[in-house]
């Protein structure tokens, strides 16, 4: 007899909820606190050139459509940036309302306006007449999506090549779902696709020079925004065990249909996260939301120098993540191939931010060991080494990133442009948006020559 297998839908929503949005009345209360400065400093802080001073004034004067328009025109991913931007270091950093009591919650207002625009079904973007010119975009992270949208607005035929099943790149596979969920991401990507951008997902370039060769095909220009997909691992004893993951492996599984599987694995288990950045904190919080027992976040930096965004650090601490700063893991202990613990000792960095071995001094008698069942590395990532083969004529710098002209983002090969983390190294989504805009502008200039 044939047994019916019940298809279990991923239960992501049970574990993760993104922050509640403002209601219209709450947004108005917040906008009412804005000083509406002359020459507002918030409007000078956005890499994507979104002007909060302008959209908040429009909200105050009940021109909500206009507010939505000025966000979306400048940043097609304005909703996502509202959710994930470290606004305290950008637009909100110089907000003068802090001189009265506290800064305006700009990120949350921006997100509100974008969702408001979606709710009323308002399309603020005009698309120019078809130019019949093909452009290829490699990778669908924030840089690629933005570049594609900007070109499509101007009437170019854009095709995005994405190696994964779904679009979004780091937005889908590098941001935990309690910050940005699939529904929100899909909705904003829809805005890009509605401009007529074509996509080829599950598309992998394999042959030598195959990206470059697109220029020999019908494509007149290429924008490379493949991101950093090669997450680092420390080479220490035990780090090749199957219970040792990179943050990318982990978030990939969380953001895929495998969330239940990993949730079952991690429940009531102890996890060590290696790293002290925002990603490490996000991963740690994610583990806690999946009901892990003890979660340690072990980093070389001191507590004061943790590179993590304050909000991300506080979120981890709020979820009872144990922060272990100024500490170095020397060994991952295993038994029968399974991770059973981590061993290390406390250290002092002689010079801030320098992680070369000669700069790390062990502190005597500070050895520690934790019983853990999983280890996750969140110590950054680099360019996929295969990319060089796919772009044999393109010059890379000594850190392995693509070399470009800073202003035009043009690579050493005419017609090939690059942006996002594959050029800058680890950075913010909104900086990738800036690159996408810049790349599109340069490609248009190049094509009009």
């Amino acid at each position, binding site marked *: 007899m044939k047994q019916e297998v019940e298809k279990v839908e991923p239960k992501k929503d049970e574990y993760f909820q993104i922050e509640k949005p403002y209601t219209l*009345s709450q947004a*108005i*209360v917040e*906008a*009412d606190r804005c*000083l*509406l*400065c*002359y*020459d507002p400093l918030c409007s000078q802080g956005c890499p994507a050139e979104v002007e909060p001073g302008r959209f908040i004034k429009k909200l*105050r004067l009940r021109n909500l459509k206009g507010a939505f328009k000025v966000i979306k025109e400048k940043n097609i991913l304005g909703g996502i940036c509202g959710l994930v931007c470290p606004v305290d270091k950008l637009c909100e950093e110089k907000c*003068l309302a802090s*001189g*009265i009591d506290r800064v305006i919650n700009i990120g949350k207002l921006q997100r509100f306006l974008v969702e408001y625009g979606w709710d009323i079904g308002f399309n603020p973007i005009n698309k120019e007449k078809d130019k019949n010119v093909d452009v290829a975009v490699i990778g669908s992270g924030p840089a690629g999506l933005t570049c594609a949208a900007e070109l499509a607005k101007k009437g170019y035929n854009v095709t995005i090549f994405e190696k994964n099943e779904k679009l979004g790149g780091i937005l889908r596979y590098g941001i935990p779902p309690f910050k940005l969920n699939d529904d929100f991401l899909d909705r904003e990507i829809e805005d890009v696709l509605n401009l007529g951008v074509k996509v080829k997902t599950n598309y992998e370039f394999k042959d030598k020079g195959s990206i470059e060769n697109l220029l020999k095909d019908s494509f007149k220009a290429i924008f490379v925004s493949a991101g950093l997909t090669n997450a680092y691992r420390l080479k220490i004893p035990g780090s090749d065990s199957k219970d040792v993951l990179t943050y990318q492996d982990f978030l990939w599984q969380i953001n895929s249909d495998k969330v239940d599987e990993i949730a079952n694995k991690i429940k009531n288990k102890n996890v060590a996260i290696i790293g002290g950045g925002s990603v490490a904190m996000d991963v740690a919080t994610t583990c806690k939301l999946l009901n892990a027992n003890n979660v340690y976040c072990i980093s070389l930096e001191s507590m004061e120098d943790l590179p993590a965004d304050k909000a991300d650090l506080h979120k981890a601490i709020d979820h009872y993540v144990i922060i272990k700063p100024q500490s170095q893991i020397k060994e991952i202990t295993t038994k029968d191939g399974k991770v059973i613990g981590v061993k290390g000792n406390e250290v002092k960095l002689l010079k801030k931010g320098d992680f070369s071995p000669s700069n790390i001094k062990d502190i005597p008698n500070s050895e520690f060991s934790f019983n853990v069942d999983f280890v996750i590395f969140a110590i950054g990532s680099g360019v996929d080494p295969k990319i060089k083969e796919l772009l044999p004529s393109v010059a890379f710098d000594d850190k392995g990133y693509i070399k470009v002209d800073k202003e035009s983002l043009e690579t050493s090969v005419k017609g090939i442009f690059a942006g996002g983390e594959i050029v800058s190294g680890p950075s913010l989504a909104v900086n990738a948006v800036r690159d996408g805009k810049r790349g599109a502008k340069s490609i248009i200039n190049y094509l009009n020559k």
Partner: protein
Amino acid sequence: MKDLSITVCGVKFPNPFLLSSSVVSNTAEMVARAFDAGFGGVSFKGIGGPSAEIINPAPRMHSYNLGSKKLVGLQNVEQTTDRPLEDNIQDVKWLKKHYPNNPVMVNIMGFNKEEWKYLAQVFEDAGADMLELNFSCPHMSVEGSGMKVGQAFKLVGDFTDIVKRNVKIPVFAKLTSNVTDITEPAMYAKEAGADGITAVNTVRAITNIDINNFVPCPNIFGKGALSGYSGPGIKPIALKCIVELAKKEELGLPLAGCGGIETWVDAVEFLLGGASLVQMTTSIVKYGHRLAEDLVEGLSFYMEDKGFNKVEDIVGKALPNFYETKDFDLSRQGAAQFDLDRCIGCGVCYIACQDAGGQCIEWDSKKRRPIPDEEKCYSCMICSFVCPIDNPPLITFKEIKGKKIYTPPPSKL
């Protein structure tokens, strides 16, 4: 705690705070709770004679909001009553029995002389301490009722006269602000024997028109009407009326102030302007009866701070400072003063001065600070109204001895 009692027309109120005749004084049960919470008295909504139809437009009110502030004003299209006269009479009797120290003024409205007489008598018999004649409801459609009486001054006199002839208790005439000069109907009331004036009823207005379906608010199944508007939005108008009435020497009657009173500060302003009693509704809609304790405490602390021993001593205290604009001393000039050490650099003073003022503030974009020019400043002070720094304000007015009035140069066209 200071003694806040005040005696008006021989009736002693434990404090000057009254419920006005409206939804908040609709039943004895509500009024009793208000007295328990600290209100001194009530103008009981006794509207509607024996023949009055019981009607209730639905929905009957609309909130006027400003930015994130809700209920800056309240619009209502209530007419007459939603209760029969017998119930109101029972309620007044019950209140007088259970709350003998809280005066009950009953607000009545008749449609003809006979009805005015009848209503006045039944409520006097029920034990009312005072009557309040409603000459001011701004949305009555029947000629010779509500505001239409208040605007036909002779009728004010006639109806006051018939009531005065038939009762012994004091009678207040409640007037509308929807006239050119409120002292005119007040004089008609006085000449007919009125003992006091209540000012003002709701102001005839329209708070909102729905921009999607073009129907004024509140929307009574596709229909709206110009009707009564109350709350903080009308306070400046109500206060003006009290000052005009108080300054009218020939009138010389005690006043009950009504319109937009929320806090003890508002109440004190009405007392200073010449009112002996204050009445409220919209603030109770907004905060409930619990606002009474803060009115009472606030007024008491104020009297302690200012050395007043009796509420009577506050009444009319500001009147000598009201002049005609022609009486100002125009030889004295000044300018806005900026405490720039506390400036946070938002620049809204610059925008206001350039776009709506005397163009006497320049902007230092490097330092993000205003550069005021005292000589050109004509003291409109709008810069201080938009400046977010308060307590104490960053921008203040100061007299400058010998300063000449600045005349801007001819426009460069």
